[in-house]
C-alpha cells in the first residue's frame, strides 16, 4: 500500500517544448507533474499553461512525444517500458493531435463508391459502382460527371491538375478499359457537367483493378485481373496509331468523334494473379501489389522486376511513402497493415504492423508531406489514422455505415473516404505539420 500511494503521489520534472508556431509555445520552464497522467492529462496541463499566457486560448487536444515516440499510456508506465529515468527532467515535445475535428456533409452517390483520389487540392475525384466518375469541388458539390464506362469504375487517378486550367484524370473500370478525361477544374456550376472521355485505353483482357499516374503526368500504369501491368501514354500527341483508331472509331460510331483510342506502350508481366494495386511514386519505378501475395518493384525502362516482397496474404492496396519514399505500406485480406522497408537487407519481416482493424483493409495511403502519417480503410467500416511512432491508431473515423472501399488524404488536412453506403465522407481539419 505504501509503495502504491508513493507512486500515486510521485511527480516527474518535465519541460514542454514544441516546434509549433509561437502562439502554441508555453514557458520553457521545468514543472513537476504527477506521473500517472495520460495524454489527456498532459494535454489539459498544456492547455492550462497556454491559457495562462493567452487568456483567449481555446482548448485544443495535443499529442506528446518523448524521444520520438507518442505517449499512449500513463507516463510512469511509458518511462518503465522505455527504461527512462524518472529522476531527470523529462523533455516532452507536444504536437497538435492528429484527428479530424470536423465532419463535412457527405457526398451522396448513386451506388457504392469504389475509388477516390484526393491528390489535387482543387477537387476530389471518385469512382462509383454505377460506372460513373465524379468530380467534387467540395463537400456535396459535384461539378463533373464522367460517363462512358460500361462497367464498374474500379480505380481513379488524377494525372495532371497543376498549372494548366484543364485537369486530366484517368479511370479504370471492370469493362476492361481505362479512360482519360479532361475538364476545367475551375468550372463551377450548380448542375454537374456530363463529360465523355477523350481517350479510351484498351488492351487488358480482364477487369482493370487499379490505375496510377506518373508524377510527371505523361504516363499512367494500370493493373488488371489478367495479371499484367500496362503502361499507357496520356498526352494526345500525334502518334500514328491514335489517328488510325480515330478514323476506325469514326466509321463505327459517329457519336464518339472526340474519342481516341490508345494502346499500351509496354506491358509488365510477372504477376501470376490479379494485380490489385499499383503506385508510380518515382520516375522510373512502379510498385505493384497482387493477389499472388507478392509486392513487386518494376523498372519502367527495362520492364524488369527489380525486387519482390512476399507477404503470404492476398494484397489489395499498396502505397509508398515515408522518408525518401522508402517505406512500402501494404494491406489486404487480413486486418493487418504492414509496412516494409526494402532498404533493410536480409529481412523478410515487415518493420511495422498495425493491427487494430477487424476485417480486410481496402486502402492505405501515406500522407503527402508527413513521413510518419498514413491512413487505412477497412471493410469493418472504419478509417484509421496511423503514426509510425505508435502502434495505436491516432484517430478512428467511424462515419461509414458499411464497408469502406477507398480512402485518401485531401489538401493535407482532410480525409476522404467512400464506401458501400454510397457516400463520400470528408473528415477535415486534421492538423499535420
Amino acid at each position, binding site marked *: 500500500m505504501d509503495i502504491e500511494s508513493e507512486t500515486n503521489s510521485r511527480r516527474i520534472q518535465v519541460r514542454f517544448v514544441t516546434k509549433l508556431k509561437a502562439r502554441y509555445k508555453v514557458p520553457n520552464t521545468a514543472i513537476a507533474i504527477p506521473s500517472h497522467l495520460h495524454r489527456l492529462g498532459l494535454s489539459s496541463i498544456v492547455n492550462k499553461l497556454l491559457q495562462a499566457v493567452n487568456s483567449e486560448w481555446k482548448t485544443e487536444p495535443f499529442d506528446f512525444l518523448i524521444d520520438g515516440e507518442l505517449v499512449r499510456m500513463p507516463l510512469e508506465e511509458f518511462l518503465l517500458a522505455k527504461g527512462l529515468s524518472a529522476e531527470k527532467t523529462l523533455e516532452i515535445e507536444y504536437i497538435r493531435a492528429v484527428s479530424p475535428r470536423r465532419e463535412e456533409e457527405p457526398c451522396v452517390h448513386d451506388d457504392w463508391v469504389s475509388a477516390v483520389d484526393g491528390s489535387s487540392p482543387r477537387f476530389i475525384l471518385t469512382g462509383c459502382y454505377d460506372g460513373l466518375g465524379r468530380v467534387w469541388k467540395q463537400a456535396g458539390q459535384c461539378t463533373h460527371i464522367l460517363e462512358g464506362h460500361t462497367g464498374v469504375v474500379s480505380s481513379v487517378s488524377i494525372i495532371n491538375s497543376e498549372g494548366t486550367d484543364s485537369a486530366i484524370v484517368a479511370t479504370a473500370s471492370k469493362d476492361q478499359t481505362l479512360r482519360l478525361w479532361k475538364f476545367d477544374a475551375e468550372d463551377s456550376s450548380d448542375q454537374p457537367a456530363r463529360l465523355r472521355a477523350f481517350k479510351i485505353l484498351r488492351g487488358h483482357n480482364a477487369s482493370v483493378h487499379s490505375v496510377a499516374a506518373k508524377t510527371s503526368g505523361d504516363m499512367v500504369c494500370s493493373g488488371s485481373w489478367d495479371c499484367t501491368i500496362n503502361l499507357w501514354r496520356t498526352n494526345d500527341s500525334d502518334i500514328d496509331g491514335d489517328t488510325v483508331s480515330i478514323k476506325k472509331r469514326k466509321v463505327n460510331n459517329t457519336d464518339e468523334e472526340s474519342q481516341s483510342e490508345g494502346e499500351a506502350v509496354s506491358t509488365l508481366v510477372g504477376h501470376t494473379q490479379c494485380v490489385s494495386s499499383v503506385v508510380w511514386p518515382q520516375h522510373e519505378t512502379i510498385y505493384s501489389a497482387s493477389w499472388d501475395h507478392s509486392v513487386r518493384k518494376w523498372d519502367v525502362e527495362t520492364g524488369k522486376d527489380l525486387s519482390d516482397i512476399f507477404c503470404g496474404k492476398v494484397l489489395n492496396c499498396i502505397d509508398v511513402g515515408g522518408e525518401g519514399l522508402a517505406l512500402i505500406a501494404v494491406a489486404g485480406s487480413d486486418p493487418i497493415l504492414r509496412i516494409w522497408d526494402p532498404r533493410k537487407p536480409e529481412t523478410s519481416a515487415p518493420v511495422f504492423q498495425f493491427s487494430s482493424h477487424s476485417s480486410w483493409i481496402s486502402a492505405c495511403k501515406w500522407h503527402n508531406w508527413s513521413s510518419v502519417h498514413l491512413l487505412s480503410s477497412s471493410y469493418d467500416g472504419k478509417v484509421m489514422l496511423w503514426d509510425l511512432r505508435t502502434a495505436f491508431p491516432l484517430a478512428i473515423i467511424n462515419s461509414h455505415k458499411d464497408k469502406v472501399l477507398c480512402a485518401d488524404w485531401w489538401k493535407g488536412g482532410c480525409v476522404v473516404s467512400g464506401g*458501400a453506403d454510397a457516400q463520400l465522407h470528408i473528415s477535415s481539419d486534421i492538423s499535420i505539420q
Partner: protein
Amino acid sequence: MSPAQTKGIVVRMIQGTRRTAVKYLNTTRPDRVEKNMHILRFIGTRSNSSRLALVAVTIVHSRKSPRFMTPSLTMGHQEGEKLDNINTLETRDEDFVERGNNNVSDDNDDQDEHSESSQSHQAVDESDSSEDEVAPRNTIGDVPLEWYKDEKHIGYDIAGRKITKKERQDKLDSFLASADDSKSWRKIYDEYNDEEVELTKEEIKQIGRLLKGKAPHAEFDPYAPYVDWFKWDDAKHPLSNAPEPKRRFIPSKWESKKVVEYVRAIRKGLIKFDQPKEEPRFYSLWGDDSSSADRTKHLAYIPPPKPKLPGHEESYNPSLEYIPTQEEINSYQLMYEEDRPKFIPKRFTSFRSIPAYENAVKDSFERCLDLYLCPRVRKKRINIDPESLKPKLPNKKDLRPYPFACYLEYKGHEDAVLSISLEPSGQWIASGSKDGTVRIWEVGTGRCLRVWEIGEAVQHVAWNPLPARPILAVSAGADVLILNTGFGNEEEQKEIKKLLHIGTSTSDDSDDMSSYLSWHQDEKYDCIRLRHYRTVSSVVWHRKGDYLSTLMPAGESRAVLIHQLSKRLTQRLPFKLHGLPVSLAFHPTRSIIFVATKKNVRVYDMLKQKLIKKLETQLREVSSIAVHPAGDNVIVGSKEGKLRWFDMDLSSKPYQSLDCHRKDITNVAFHRSYPLFASCSDDGTAYVFHGMVYADLNENPRIVPLEILRGHTSSDGRGVLDCTFHPRQPWLFTAGADSTIKLYCH
C-alpha cells in the same frame, strides 16, 4: 572344600529331588505325608531319595513301634531325636508342629490301642488341609532369585499378597548361635523357601562321597562280581566256530584316515569347536516364545501379515478432519477401482443411527462364490497412455495457409443458398438460392453484380471451367439453363452469344430423345434452356467446357445425361446404374466419370465405355463426391456425417474415414492447387483438412484435420449447404441456409 560350597550343593540337590520324593510319598504312604514333609527336605541325592524318604517315614513309625525297625535303619533312631529339633525350628506353622508333637506323644503313649488303619484314617483327614500348603512352594516362579535380593518379600501367595521374608538373624546372633550350637555348620539357609535346614550326618557323608567322585550310597558296590548269564560250556555246538577274524585285532585304516582328515581340518581351521555359550545379560521376561534360538533349530515360521489396526476414522463418529469433503469423494470416482479407498469415513450422531452394513448381501454372495470355487474374471487394466494412441500429426502451423477466419459475407439472398460456384479466375462467385434467384458476386468486395430471377428454387449452379467462356449452368426444377454472365470482352461475348443461340429448331433431335429432353431458347435471358423430364439435382461441367452432365436422381436409366453444348447433342450414360445416383464428378485429366449411388461409387471410362472400378463406401447414403485434382483420390461425404477418403491406387475400400460431422454432410470439395479439402454439413460447420497427396506411390496421403469453421446459423434443420474453394487462394466459400455466403480466408 568350604562349608559354604557344600551347603550350595546340598540345597541344589534338595531342590532337584524334593518333588520326586513327594510324589513317591504320595503314592506309597499317603497317610503320613503331611507330617513328614519337613523330613523330606533333608533328602539328599536323587539316587537314593526314595529310600531315604522311606527311611525317614519309618523313623517316625519306629517311635511308636520299635519292633518294626529294620536293621538298616539304625541311624533312624538318631533321626527321630533330631525331629524334635527340627520341629522347634518350625516357627511358621506352629499348629503343624504342635500337632506333630501331639501325634508323636500319642504314638508313644498308646502304642497298642491305635491300630495302623485308624491312624492312617486320621492322617487322611488331616492331609487334605495341609498338603496344598506344603507342596511345591516356589513362590517366585521361574525368575532369578537375585531379583528378590533386596526385597522384603519373596514371591506372592495365591491371593496376590506378598510373602514376607523371615527376619534374618543379625550377624551377632547368628555367630553366637553358631558358637553355642556344635551343629551349626550343618545348617543351610534355603533361599527359595526362606528357611534354615540342618543336614544330617548321613547326608554329610553322602555329600563327602559325591565330592570324592564316588557313588553317593555307601552300600553301592561299583565293582560287583560279574554274573555271566550265558552258559558257555553247556552248549553242544558253539554259536560259531569260526576263528576270530584278523580285522578284530588290527587298527582300522578307515578310522585313521578319518582321524587324519579331521586333524587336518582342525589345523586348517575348517572345523571349529563350539564357543561356550554366553549367558544373555538380561532376562527377557516378556520375550516372544518363538525366539531366535528356537528358530535356528526349526523351520522358519513366517507370521501372517498383521491387519491394520482400526483407526479413528473407522469410528462411527470420527472427528471432522477424517470426513472427506465432497470434492474428495468426487475425486475418488475418477480413480481406478483398485486405488479407491475401501472405507470412506462417515459421521453418525448416535450409535443408533448407524445403518446396516450395506455390502452385507454382496459380501456374503461373494463368500458363497468363493466357497463354491467359482472362477471370476479378473479385469486387467490396460496401462496405455491414451495420448500415445493418437497418430502423430504435424503441427497446424506448418500446414499453413488454410482458411480459418471469416472476414467477408455476401448478403442479398432471401432464402437458403443452395449452391455456389467460383469463376475459374476467382474474381466472381455465382450462387443459386431457394428464393429462385441466381446471383453473381464480386469476390473481393462482396458486391452483388447481377441477379437472375429463375422463378424456381435453384438447385445447382456451375461456372464453365474455361476462362474465356464465362457462362453459367443453372439447374432449377426440371430445367437446366445456360446463362450468359456478360463478362469477358467483346469477342468473347460475340462467341458466347453465338453459342447460346439456338435457332427455331427445338425438336430436331431423334424422337426418343425428345420425350425426355428438349433444347429451348429462353427468350427472357437469351440463353439455352434444357428441359428434362425429371428434377435435375446437379450440373457438372467437363473440364473442356463443352460437355455438361446433368443428374436426375429419379431418372432411372436416363438419370445421368451428357450434353454437348457446341453440337447441342444429348446422350445418356451408356451404363446400367445399380442404385439411385446421387452425385457425379468428372476426372480432372482423363475421360473418366465418377458416379456416386447411394451405396457405392462407380468409375467409368467414357472412351472405352466400361466400368473401371467400384468403390465400396461402407456408408448408408452417399451425399457428395469430390475428386482430387491429380485424379487418384476421391472423397465421399455421406448423410450420416461421415467422410471417406479413397486412394484409387490402393484399394476399393476407404483409405481413411473421418467421422467429424454430427449431421449430414452436404458437400465436399478439394482445392485445385493447395493440399486442402473441406466438407460442410447441416450441423452448421465446415471442416477444413490438410490432404497432401504425394507423387511417390510408396507414400500414403497425409490427412490432417485443420479447422472447424463456424459462423453459419441453422435454419429449419439445415446448416451449411455448399462449400467450394477459391481456385487460386486458400479460401473457402460456404453457402448457408441462413441465406448468406461466407468467405473464410487464411
